[in-house]
């Protein structure tokens, strides 16, 4: 796949300024995202994985300019979109969509499904009033819902059906890029499989690009072209799915993969897991050097002093780890 970058993320930083203490007397900084660099290729599914709090959602929000970036660039169609104000952002808003875990919280309970799907069409003037009804029916058909659902309300739908509506709403904008932030995580296995199939079908039909955020690595392995692993606000590793799952290089990736259960009793009973010690450190004062050094089984002297560079260890396979990149030239 010789795809072009759809989006280029350069040195992206997002810090949240928060106040701590019983009276908010102490100012502190959450290092949610630090110096993140990657490309998102046209038409691909790029997944982000990592333990909760590692900055996956913040990445999704910041690169859609829903959070103001603290530093860095997100280049989309030749513009650095994170420096645009809301007005200048408007032409890009339609193309860049997001779908969340809990569609219930984003669907207005007093709006019918038809109104919910029609709203962005009217807002972005993508159809006339006369065309609207057909357009809504076509979108519902795209996500596998019969036209009669247009007159229903969110509470009359199952979780899987609501997630289909949320996807239809995003599709209504004729987007190029969709961030799926834990979009299937709350669904039951059988329904989850339906939505994964739907996402793959829509990608083919409309040439969509996905940033897929999920904590289920079996699902990520199924759906992704490439996978990025985050740890405490930084990218640890990024590679094609084959490379990442078959030749993981970063010690954190290895630990994460060793925790994924397989639907195979004999294999599960005999496997030795590499269990990570302790918890993820606080993003208020991330460890110096490599942020993983407090839990890394192979940490060296240099690791708590120098931040490992984000380097290409094999073609198309980037990693930030002194132990991996030590032997690489230059």
């Amino acid at each position, binding site marked *: 796949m010789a795809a072009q970058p759809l989006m280029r993320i350069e040195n992206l930083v997002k810090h949240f300024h928060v106040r701590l203490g019983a009276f908010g007397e102490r100012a502190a900084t959450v290092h949610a995202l630090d110096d993140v660099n990657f490309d998102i290729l046209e038409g691909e599914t790029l997944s982000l994985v990592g333990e909760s709090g590692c900055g996956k959602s913040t990445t999704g929000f910041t690169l859609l300019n829903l959070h103001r970036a603290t530093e860095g660039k997100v280049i989309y169609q030749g513009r650095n979109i994170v420096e645009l104000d809301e007005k200048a952002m408007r032409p890009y808003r339609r193309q860049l969509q997001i779908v969340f875990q809990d569609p219930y919280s984003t669907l207005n309970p007093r709006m019918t499904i038809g109104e919910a799907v029609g709203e962005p069409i009217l807002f972005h003037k993508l159809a006339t009033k006369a065309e609207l009804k057909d357009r809504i029916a076509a979108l519902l058909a795209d996500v596998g819902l019969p036209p009669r659902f247009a007159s229903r309300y969110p509470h009359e739908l199952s979780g899987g059906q609501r997630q289909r509506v949320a996807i239809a709403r995003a599709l209504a904008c004729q987007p190029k890029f969709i961030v799926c932030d834990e979009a299937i995580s709350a669904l039951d296995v059988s329904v989850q499989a339906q939505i994964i199939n739907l996402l793959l079908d829509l990608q083919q039909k409309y040439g969509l690009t996905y940033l897929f955020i999920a904590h289920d690595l079996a699902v990520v392995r199924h759906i992704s072209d490439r996978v990025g692993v985050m740890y405490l606000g930084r990218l640890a590793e990024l590679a094609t799915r084959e490379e990442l799952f078959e030749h993981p290089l970063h010690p954190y990736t290895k630990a994460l993969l060793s925790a994924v259960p397989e*639907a195979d009793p004999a294999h599960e009973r005999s496997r030795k897991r590499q269990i990570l010690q302790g918890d993820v450190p606080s993003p208020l004062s991330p460890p110096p050097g490599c942020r993983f050094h407090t839990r890394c089984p192979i940490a060296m002297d240099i690791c708590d002093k120098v931040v490992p560079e984000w380097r290409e260890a094999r073609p198309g396979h980037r990693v930030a780890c002194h132990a991996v990149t030590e032997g690489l030239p230059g």
Partner: protein
Amino acid sequence: MMMANTIRPEPSTKTGERLLDVKGLTIEIETRNGPATIVDGIDLHVGKGETLGIVGESGCGKSLTMLSMMRLLPNKIRVTKGEANFAGRDLQTMSNSELRKVRGGDVGFIFQDPMTSLNPVMRIGQQLAEPLIYHRGMSKAQARKRAGELLRLVGIPGAEERLDAYPHELSGGMRQRVMIAIGLACNPQLLIADEPTTALDVTIQAQIVDLVKDLRDKLGMSVVWITHDLALIAGLVDRINVLYAGTVVEDAPVDALFANPSHPYTQGLLASIPKLSDERSIRLSSIGGTPPEPGRRPKGCPFAPRCPLVESICHDSVPSLEGLSQNGSHRVACFVAQRKLEAA
């Protein structure tokens, strides 16, 4: 923290000695349109030292079944039929004071969300000590010492210092460990874990599964582990019961269930889990539709509206759980699966 590998005593699945034996348990909910069945005459049992996995999608009645045994059902929901015997005594008919001795004593519980089951304004140590004082008659000092040991047992670093912490001062993974410690406090004969890792990261899920496995082997207790995730319990349990719409549709030893799933619903569930060997963008097989709501149960087989193998008999009669294998250890509630076996 790694524990030494203990040799696990053979669970008594084979000898048939049942620690927990639930028969024909039916649970109904009071609705505007009258009572609706949620759990429909469920049968399940757990042998001494055995680990049973209960698998099913959300809303199929997993939690209510467990809560009903301990007579902890919410308002408007009640048991209308059946019995639940623990160590030979019916939990449904024993006196409240007897039941209180069982609950948290010989039967330990771990729930999904520690924030709702831990008391937010009580220190961890006190919450651990209470059952020890109540059930095991320990003094305050003894109970505190044991509470510290329990926290260490479940792998909480700096255990003794954590005794004075409040739940909100701990991470999600740590709180879940505290829940496990409370569940284990009185050395229960049976531990019931209701989706204890569902909200946690894979890394912590794996730690907790390994922890329960080690403790079970060490203490020789029976475990019921409720989940919607078949892969997660593959290496933990001896036997699996698959629940659908408040009934057990398949009961099998774990290896048999994965190697030879026989109910169309079990087959559908297993097929919808993405596999290591899948090519990218291969379509996952999925089960169309959704489970029936209480009050809208079909007359015949509850799975009939979603079943790819449905026949006319399925709409009229309810299949019962019948033995597939020679020794009856693999049972399935499906007309078609049963007929296939007879033909073979």
